[in-house]
């Protein structure tokens, strides 16, 4: 059991490490595209953790064949992870679309700059003085 335990530990640690890397990326990235990537890494870690929650080494893939099989892996986490992955894909595609549009609107994908421009835009639309102190927001599409 010892080697199995060891491998399991490595797998779990890998999943958790992915999450930590992703979260670190989320926190430290100043670039929106990197934020999307960090989010993707975090999701990957979470998905890995999810699929690990039903995995076992001594078992086979849950497909009924004519051969005599042993114990099968829990199929439910596999199905869940399939769903979670596809969800992640959808979210990431949308995020990329948004990054594209932000870049088109503001000419920058720097977190702080985008934040500042957004505040300005919201204030300008509401008819308030701009938080950044500029006269009026730059023209954008």
């Amino acid at each position, binding site marked *: 059991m010892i080697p199995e335990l060891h491998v399991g530990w490595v797998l779990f640690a890998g999943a958790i490490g992915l999450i*930590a890397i992703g979260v670190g990326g989320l926190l430290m990235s100043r670039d929106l595209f990197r934020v999307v990537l960090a989010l993707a890494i975090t999701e990957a870690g979470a998905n890995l953790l999810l699929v690990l929650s039903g995995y076992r080494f001594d078992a086979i*893939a849950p497909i*009924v064949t004519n051969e005599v099989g042993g114990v099968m892996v829990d199929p*439910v986490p596999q199905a869940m992870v399939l769903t979670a992955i596809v969800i992640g*894909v959808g*979210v990431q595609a949308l995020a990329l*679309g948004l990054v594209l549009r932000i870049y088109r609107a503001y000419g920058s994908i720097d977190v702080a700059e985008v934040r500042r421009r957004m505040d300005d835009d919201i204030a300008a639309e509401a008819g308030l003085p701009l938080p950044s102190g500029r006269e009026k927001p730059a023209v954008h599409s």
Partner: protein
Amino acid sequence: MRKAAALLFTLGLLFLLSVMFLRFELGQAPMRIGKDILAAAPEQVGAANIVTSVVLGYRGLDTLGEIAILFTAATATGLILSGLGGGQRRDPEGGFILRHGADLVFPFLMLVGMYIVVHGHLTPGGGFQGGVVLAAAFFLPLLARPSRAVSHSALGWIEGLAGASFIVIGLWALTLDQAFMTPWLHQGVLGELFSAGTLPLLYLALGLKVGAELASLLAHLAEVEASE
């Protein structure tokens, strides 16, 4: 300073997650419904691939939700990217090899994709995996010939009808006084192509939908890129 704090908190998360998850050993999970499903799936659903039984049978609604999410993402991306530029493509045409290679590979990709889709209930694979291959088949010509406009209308009809047929197959059960998504075709023999009731039909719809969805997502993004 901020980076240091970020690092610190990331390490904190690492620590907490380790505390929470490293206590578990692989294979020690109780597998309550997992065992039940493994035992019951071959009779109840009749699909050799039990993951497919779960994806389309036991957890079919999740799958419907998931294609809805893909559809939503595609629609939302289409919404936010529409009205951008005139779609003036400036990407150069692909070279001879790329163009003809793409033409050559296209039918094979289609074939592989469809194969994976329709055998989803028997072997590893299924609507998602096959759908992605199908999307690749559609996307390849796009890369080779950036000037050719994608027919969003056609893609829209495919994804709409495919999604609708998934739901309609599910709803048909209601007319038989069954719950939504109850398989209503004959189960057939385990392991054969035409088995597992409505599952292959669902996977077919799913595959088409996923393929069309991804293709339209990619096309939308590619168009913006091109109009850069």
